[in-house]
């Protein structure tokens, strides 16, 4: 039976056990003399949980472990019969066996065919075993629990435990996947740093990876100094924040403090829609409209503006971030208690004075947090810079020149035909790690700052 059929079956089982248990608890409670310790539905949920979750876990375990076990078994088989094969060759044969057994390729080698046959036999045996054990576990537990409803036992507490475990497991999964991603990033980066000195990467002033177009091309090893790329990222993000911060913050202040309810009800959802525009659209805008426009203005002023300037990418990125900052700040400003405003207005302060001297200081910790979140977003932003910033890594702070950013480099290093143990490919992981570290530091600063400041304010 397939995974989904099995899952549906055990869900059906557990629903049955839910209804059976709750109705039997209901009957018992009705005829009982003493006060029951839980409601019928708690007994139902209790037996549902026992019918569903252990079987579900078993199903997951079989589904993950089963094929791995079979593969290992066959690797051993192959190694035993063909002693001359090395590891890579064994993997190859195994892959062939698997492909033949699921019918995607065919072979005329009898030895291989026989193995493939055995493979599919073995696998279907495992799956049969999976089906039987899962169904058995589910039904046995379901029957035992639901036929032994004891209304003097408090199943509410046990259901509560189940919920707690459920939420805990979800949290653990969330954390573990994150940790896993970071670990793989670290692992690949370490491979890169084995090929390229760490400090040369961190402090190098020259970035020229020269990606190999063909694997047989003899290319000189590029140089992987991260600083120009990082500087490009910072420059673009800085321009973005210079555009986004004042406009975003001031529009939030307008919305929260000055706009009438009608205006607010229109603008707020509009901002949220703007925040939902895919960044590739902004990228379009940057590459096709903003960059040529800036170049034309530069030309009339007699300035030499490259066609892919940091200014264009940064400005459009800023425009993208405006609704983000504005919406967040609006919420933060709104959460400042009205009583503070009343206090200030009651002393004869004007609305602007109240906003500047009372509301904004009270909202400051939250605003710092929002601002740093926006910075992290600008730094991690990819699409706009891929489309509007350049590829050449210039060590410059002139916004009219072409710069490249960390994200752009990662994209260009990893797209197209690349070899996965090539130094150029691996350097992308080094960049990824650097980017991760940078935004992590920013987020930690944001956290510390807003915590410090809010201690001061309440």
């Amino acid at each position, binding site marked *: 039976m397939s995974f989904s059929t099995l899952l549906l079956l055990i869900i059906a089982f557990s629903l049955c056990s839910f209804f059976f248990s709750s109705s039997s608890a209901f009957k018992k409670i009705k005829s009982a003399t003493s006060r029951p310790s839980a409601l019928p539905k708690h007994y139902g949920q209790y037996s549902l949980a026992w019918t569903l979750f252990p079987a579900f876990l078993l199903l997951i375990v079989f589904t993950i472990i089963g094929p791995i076990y079979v593969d290992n078994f066959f690797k051993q088989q192959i190694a035993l019969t063909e002693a001359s094969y090395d590891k890579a060759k064994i993997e190859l044969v195994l892959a062939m066996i698997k492909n033949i057994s699921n019918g995607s390729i065919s072979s005329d080698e009898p030895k291989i065919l026989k193995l493939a046959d055995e493979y599919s036999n073995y696998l279907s045996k495992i799956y049969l075993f999976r089906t039987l054990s899962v169904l058995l576990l589910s039904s046995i537990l379901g029957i035992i629990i639901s036929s032994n409803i004891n209304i003097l036992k408090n199943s509410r507490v046990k259901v509560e435990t189940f919920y707690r475990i459920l939420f805990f497991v979800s949290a653990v999964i969330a954390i573990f996947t994150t940790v896993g991603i970071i670990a793989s990033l670290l692992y690949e980066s370490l491979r890169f740093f084995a090929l390229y000195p760490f400090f040369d990467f961190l402090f190098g002033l020259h970035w020229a990876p020269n990606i190999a177009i063909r694997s047989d091309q003899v290319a000189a090893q590029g140089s992987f100094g991260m600083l120009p790329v990082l500087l490009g990222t910072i420059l673009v993000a800085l321009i973005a924040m210079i555009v986004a911060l004042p406009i975003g913050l001031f529009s939030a202040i307008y919305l929260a403090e000055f706009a009438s309810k009608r205006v607010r009800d229109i603008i707020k959802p509009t901002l949220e829609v703007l925040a939902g525009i895919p960044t590739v659209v902004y990228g379009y805008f940057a590459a096709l409209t903003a960059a040529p426009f800036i170049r034309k203005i530069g030309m009339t002023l007699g300035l030499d503006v490259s066609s892919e300037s940091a200014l264009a990418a940064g400005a459009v990125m800023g425009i993208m971030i405006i609704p983000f900052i504005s919406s967040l700040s609006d919420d933060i400003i709104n959460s400042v208690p009205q009583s503070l405003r009343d*206090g200030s207005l009651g002393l004869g302060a004007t609305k602007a004075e109240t906003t500047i001297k009372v509301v904004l200081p009270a909202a400051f910790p939250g605003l710092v947090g929002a601002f740093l979140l926006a910075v992290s977003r600008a730094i991690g932003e990819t699409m706009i810079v891929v489309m509007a910033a350049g590829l050449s890594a210039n060590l410059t702070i002139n916004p009219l020149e072409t710069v490249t950013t960390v994200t752009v480099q990662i994209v260009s290093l990893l797209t197209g035909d690349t070899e996965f143990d090539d130094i150029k490919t691996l350097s992308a992981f080094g960049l990824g790690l650097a980017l991760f570290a940078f935004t992590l530091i920013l987020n930690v600063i944001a956290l510390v700052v807003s915590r410090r400041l809010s201690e001061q304010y309440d």
Partner: protein
Amino acid sequence: MVDKKNNLKFKTKNVSVFYGSKQAINKISLDIEEKQITALIGPSGCGKSTFLRCLNRMNDVISNCSVNGKILLDGNNIYSDEIDPVLLRAKVGMVFQKPNPFPKSIFENIAYGPRIHGIGNNRAELTDLVHHSLEQAGLIDEVKDRLDDIATGLSGGQQQRICIARAIAVNPDVILMDEPCSALDPIATAKIEELMSSLSKSYTIIIVTHSMQQAGRVSQKTAFFHMGDLIEYGETPKIFTQPDQQKTQDYITGRFG
């Protein structure tokens, strides 16, 4: 006290207030004497706060609130176009039900109003003013060594007196107090009542309270509101001993409300 002739500070004539289409108070006409304490009492929702907030136009802050009728402060209609509500509020200060000091230092809380109105141009003058206001609010001994501490770290009663000191610091004529003691314990309440009595020598005070005893203790005049109407207004001892209206009698004896 009863036969003392006082100037009128506020004259209100047929003041009605609407929140949207809902009427909150109905044609209130009430004259308030200078340098006296006037108490507004009545069951919850009868419009006491609404009326109080008319007197310094704090109702302007509420978007759907409209005020009809005439309110004269020293003979000038405060709802006329020439009156700047910001200046009015400097003259008619307000203390709220919940203590609402700013999340700033004690000093900055008191200095806030004077700074805004350009009173106390240098640091020395400002410091004097802050000390003087705290002294008037009876708080100086408790906080003089910690003027730089954050005001929200004080106790509720101290916070409320900070708010009173803050209002005094801009040198108003009138102080409006909306249930200033409802969040406080009896000792803090007693301190604030004492403070009100001493402040009434220099300020006109209008206080909303749910405590009959408080109204009896501190006020010279009492107005009884019921469902948006002014039922009775007179000398406090009279209202509490021999009211003219049956409704007032019922309320002060606790038969409803």
